């Protein structure tokens, strides 16, 4: 079960999305009403049906899924999500970077699964803008961990210029 609240654009909000096909659960033949996010395989098989519903549709990617597989479909999607079955599996960070910087995804990019507040900084900086934390986690408390580092060294998706390109433009360091 996914929690019913998400962190979106720095606030806790009710989640309008239904995720199907997560874990062992099969994708139901009759899709529920409202916005739904389906796994990559279901999107590829049932794309015509999903588009015909005339409701927002999203795709969620597993760690091993290659985002290039939806690169040409992005215009039809209202959400792309990346599943973190275990928080220590970091493939999803590269998935996000590629979606944002190579394939041009500008819509909502959601991290869900075994996600905790201590990953929010990295997730934000690789381009995620909404977070569905593991169910036992308190999203309100997690807001305190959104930005632990004011000016990180590297560029990120949220701010591409690395610090070394700013040290000379923001005036004296001290």
């Amino acid at each position: 079960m996914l929690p019913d609240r998400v962190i979106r654009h720095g606030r806790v909000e009710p989640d309008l999305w239904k995720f199907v096909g997560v874990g062992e659960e099969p994708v139901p033949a009759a899709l529920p009403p409202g916005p739904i996010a389906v796994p990559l395989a279901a999107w590829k098989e049932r794309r015509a049906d999903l588009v015909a519903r005339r409701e927002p549709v999203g795709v969620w990617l597993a760690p091993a899924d290659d985002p290039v597989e939806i690169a040409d479909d992005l215009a039809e999607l209202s959400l792309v999500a990346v599943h973190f079955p275990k928080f220590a599996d970091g493939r999803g960070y590269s998935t996000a970077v590629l979606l944002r910087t190579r394939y041009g995804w500008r819509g909502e990019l959601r991290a869900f699964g075994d996600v905790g507040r201590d990953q929010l900084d990295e997730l934000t900086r690789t381009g995620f803008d909404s977070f569905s934390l593991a169910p036992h986690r308190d999203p309100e408390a997690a807001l305190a961990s959104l930005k632990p580092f004011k000016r990180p060294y590297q560029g990120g998706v949220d701010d591409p210029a690395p610090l070394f390109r700013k040290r000379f433009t923001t005036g004296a360091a001290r």
Partner: protein
Amino acid sequence: MYKYDAYDQALVDERVAQFRDQTRRYLAGELTDDEFRPLRLRNGLYIQRHAPMLRVAIPYGLLASRQLRKLASIAREFDRGYGHFSTRQNLQYNWPKLETVPEILAQLATVEMHAIQTSGNCVRNITTDHFAGVAPDEIVDPRPFAEILRQWSTFHPEFNWLPRKFKIAVNAATEDRTALLLHDIGLQLLKNDAGEVGIRVVVGGGMGRTPIIGHVINEFVPWRHMLTYVEAILRVYNRYGRRDNIYKARIKILVKSLGPEPFAREVDEEWTAFSQDSPSIITDEELARVSAHFVAPAYQKLPDVDPHHVQSLADSRAFKRWAERNVHPHRVPGYAAVTLSLKKTGVPPGDATAEQMEQVADMAERYSFGELRVSHEQNLILADVRKRDLFAVWLAAKAAGFATPNVGLLTNIISCPGGDFCSLANAKSIPIAEAIQRRFDDLDYLHDIGELDLNISGCMNSCGHHHVGHIGILGVDKNGAEWYQVSIGGRQGNHAALGDVIGPSFAAADMPDVVERLIETYLDQRHEDELFVDTVHRLGIAPFKQRVYAGKELAHAA
């Protein structure tokens, strides 16, 4: 050396606050053991056999006297009065308490130090040549590049949860002193025919249970693209490295399974896709800014031959012997680099007490511009000593217990902490090192044997670099008992090679005999001026093996 500005300092301070909060949440039961473990590991904190172990980063092995004094005072206040210098140029405390670690980190931050990414499946401390900036064979100074890499890899958001740990070494001299070919990435700085600086990139080397010599995947990456190229390698690894088996998760396994050339093509394709206009292309201004931190100290203009030094060499045989082994050439006339040995018999290799750290800090201030280095051979180095001061440095080193004249010799043993401390170890390493040092305590004999690297690891993780020891010793566990497997013929440097195992493993008590028989074989068979390792490569392991296993039966495991 690199001095923090307000940006650098803020990042380290913010990290202390973040870890303080994580520790608080763990102690309050808000984080489980499984959740806290990778968070604390990213700050170098292990839970060990007796207590937590905290690994403090010493970026590319460079330390200022005031930093070493702080390390000494932390050892006194929070530990048992000593620390252990590791083979990755870091310092480990073996007895801190978990609750005090945030405070230790706060104290480290006051001297521009931290424990960031000294463990965990992320990019670890960048290592380089311990003679960087002073080596006569240096092509360019590697330290600005190592610092730029340090900053890039610190809290890199995409690469903080890699399949496995990731070690990068930078070498910039003609001789490799970094074990470059045995790193996840080895960066060799060089100049092309046009005099432009670039990087030969080696990938997929490593020790551990599958030792592999790295492969060159690019002969010349322009220096401005150091970060973009490393980013491309890490993206390929992060996406395709194995995550199903911890023993197959290092990049070397990915490079091996794809093959070095297909791997290189993957990297190239990725690199081409984003690098042309990447903001991570290093600017001239940034290289100049960082390089300004590593300008040469105020060397005096001195004759290269110092009469006082020459006289001392003639007067004292002991000093001469020390100078032969522990004093190294310097690119500036009249100066030398000095190794302070942490390999005194009876002391665990790499260990230093708080008092010794303070003594070294004083010596560095008095004789070497207030800076020193940690070598991957677990010694300390004063890089800028006037030749006329060498005798005084020797006297001070002798008084403090660092003058063992054994650099490059058999008793300069590299050893991990082993089963006495480490919960991963299969067997003890320190008592084996000590028993061998005691057997070879005759200095004339030791010098006659000549250059010999003897490396000991307490388990397959090979923190003691046994694969590249001329003699390598590996602790193994057989049915709950500690045994030692011996290999010979390994070496580091430009012609790095992995040793070959000579046969069944031995009991601890027999290890000095085993080493002695290897040495006797060498002394009988060597050509003039031939090192032990060269004799092994010329003859193969057979005569050594025969001698060790013949004659008096040594107890060995089947």
